[in-house]
């Protein structure tokens, strides 16, 4: 069961920027906005040393972690080569400029993120979801 909760409007996140979303348990979530207003959500923890991705520089479809400059893909949460590792992804729905996260997904216990299982948790593509589809690419 999806349980969408509006968190803010798209224009409340700076273009090429992010906002931090806190939750009761499981760690913060970073919600990113690209130059062309697409929105992505990742666990706010770099797979390298746990740096807060919400504080990084956003460019193209990636964010550079502020601690050691790993490049993390916003769509799949995975580090660009030669680095290896993925940050957990979260579903995002954008409806008439309002950004919503799925509370039932947020309430799931934290687990090691990898793109293969992420798509299972997401339960397929929501027709209204503006996030990209689950990538077929495996972690490098």
């Amino acid at each position, binding site marked *: 069961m999806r349980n969408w*909760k509006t968190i803010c409007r798209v224009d409340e996140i*700076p273009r090429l920027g992010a906002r*931090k979303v806190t*939750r009761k348990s499981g760690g913060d979530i970073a919600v990113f906005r690209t130059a062309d207003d697409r929105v992505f959500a990742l666990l706010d923890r770099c797979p390298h040393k746990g740096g807060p991705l919400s504080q990084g520089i956003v460019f193209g479809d990636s964010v550079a972690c502020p601690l050691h400059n790993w490049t993390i893909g916003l769509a799949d949460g995975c580090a660009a080569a030669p680095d290896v590792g993925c940050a957990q992804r979260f579903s995002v729905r954008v409806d008439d400029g309002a950004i919503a996260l799925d509370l039932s997904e947020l309430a799931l216990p934290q687990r090691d993120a990898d793109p293969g299982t992420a798509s299972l948790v997401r339960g397929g593509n929501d027709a209204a979801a503006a996030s990209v589809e689950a990538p077929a690419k495996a972690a490098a």
Partner: protein
Amino acid sequence: MKKMNLVMVGNGMAGVRTLEELLKIAPDLYDITVFGAEPHPNYNRILLSPVLAGEQTLADIVLNPVEWYAGHGIALHLGRKVVDVKRSRRVAIADDGTEAPYDRLLIATGSNPFIPPLPGKDLDGVIAYRDIADTNAMIETAKTHKHAVVIGGGLLGLEAANGLMLRGMSVTVVHLMPWLMERQLDEVAGGMLQKSLESRGLKFRIGAQTEALLGDDSGRVKAVRFKDGSEEQADLVVMAAGIRPNTALAEQIGLHCNRGVVVNDTMQTITDGRIYAVGECAAHRGIAYGLVAPLFEQAKVCATHLAEFGIGRYLGSQTSTKLKVTGIDLFSAGDFSGGGDTEEIVLSDPSNSVYKKLVVKDDRLIGACLYGDTADGSWYFDMVREGRDIASIRDHLMFGQQHLGDTGHAGNSRASTMADSAEVCGCNGVKKGTIVKAIRDQGLFTLDEVRKRTKASGSCGSCTGLVEQILMATAGAGYTAAPKLKPVCGCTDANHQQVRDAIREQHLLTIAAVYEELGWRTPNGCASCRPAVNYYLISTWPHEALDDPQSRFINERAHANIQKNGTFSVVPRMWAGETSAAELRRIADVVDKYRIPTVKVTGGQRIDLLGVKKEDLKAVWQDLGMPSGHAYGKTLRTVKTCVGSEWCRFGTQDSTTMGKELERALWRMYAPHKVKLAVSGCPRNCAESGIKDVGVIGVDSGWEIYVAGNGGIKTDVAQFLCKVKTHAEVLEYSAAFLQLYREEGWYLERTVHYVGRVGLDHVKAKVLDDAANRARLAERLRFALDGLPDPWFEHDKAHIDVRQFEPIAV
């Protein structure tokens, strides 16, 4: 839409690299067809010598296996030679009749060995040294025959001779010129090389002119006869007398050739714009290159043009040479022959087999020839390419980079003697073995590639020289360091200077305009170029170009220093390091109220509050009631002072007041990198002015100003700029120097590197000799800083997005 057809003639390193670059940026533009005369996929021709010497196998040196071509949908015709091209119909025809229509044709036919027109050159057992077939023929011959003669004592000939000797043959090298490798070495180094090779068992006939090759009854070569009538027994003769661009096809189809297929700066043949040429067959501005790095630069330019990006020009390359004979170290670069109006610095130690010659002209290094100790080859080569002013390090130049001190590889700068388990890059924990493996397995040739694949030297950069040495030792002679003009990042081919120039000359005011004007490959850059371009804009057009906070690193966006756990540190400004009871009380109250875990005194005489939550930053600033210390930015950080004449019994000048005046005049100043000042009240120099970007030392008659010191990764002592009398002069000279650095420095270049690049004489000419210019510089800095907000208190005016301090809760 139907794709265009791209046909490539030749299947070597330069051509395939062009395809790789093209597929990276425009994977779907062309249907690609490749014709290769050899029956092998693309392999690393440079490494044929280690194969011959038995150090590597043929399988080791394949760069692109057949599957690579298939995986990219490339139609590959191996063992097929293109015999004709009908330019009017735009179709290439192979020797088996295959026809391939093209929209673009890429000629990458490489070069042919030069075979001197000697009687007997067609006998059995007479071969060139150019490809896998030649290498195999040599390996086979060595199994059954004893005597080999190599004609040509250049790079290739010596590598062939060494390989044959290691395979058990008795080898004589015949060389027409007065010493070995005369194009890469001077006479002394050539002589040392010969002696060293002789001690390994090679024989030489220097200055000998070959007259004929003599055969036996079966038509196999048996001896070489010289002009003086003497003969040398030979079962195998290897012709290594040089290479010639392979332009047979190009000439046949009417393309203009002059020692190579003549191409323009976009690698198009000047005869036919649909036809490109790259690699050893191409003549660019009269030069056909034979080393891999220039060819890869050509490949990149050619690919961007084929991709219809219309950017990138090839402007020629400087090259360097290294011999791939294990155990012999030699290196040369640039113009090492000297003479004329050049000067030579020479170190000669024949009994230790070390010889070094550096050629200097107008305080620039223009060439180097090293034998025996080549550890600093890449360092010298960098200086040759960059044209750096070496006046200030001339005394030490001969003794190498290590002598100048560098914690990055102090005590061990000989890449070849390092164990595989030794750590090269201390920032990213990359070991030598990892780098060597990546270079071998993935066929890497440039520093950038090694950085990208292994992260070595990707952080602080202090091990760059060492990584370059490993690259040279592993990839061999084909390697030359990074391109002459290093681009800002992978998003562009433009270098820092070109970006600065464009912003100034075209009056560009936004990052988007810069990317548009310079043809950036990415829509909004990356984390490397955006902060650089943002700085160039606001420093070139102050109060006009708008600062873009999203293009700044988090520290400059949040005006605090991010720490490893995601919290921040806060350093309030204490003018010249002086504080008061009231300030200290407020600091103590803030520490208690916000439960700040650590309070630390910094090297710049400030107090650092560590572990502040981002949500608390605004309130912490408010409660402190002290200006921003800018400890988080590429800005003026601190002016450190000693107590000076007000209290010190030795003090000759009031350093604290001078420091406060400087700090108040310069604070809020953004710069290419962080800027630190110090003022000492007497020559005892308790404020450590000698390792600061601007260091001021009080003497009885006034102030001495030093610039471009650095206490960071590599300690550099500041250089004396001038001596002045008054506080006002200290302020004006310091401001003028810093403004010059702000206007001319490249992003992330500290003053020491900026002054190293432009030379102290340049700084003196602009700041000391020209009083009017000095006043203008100081005035431009004053204008730039005038009215700038304190970001801790004037959030709106400082363009701070305060929403970042308020997390959203679900």
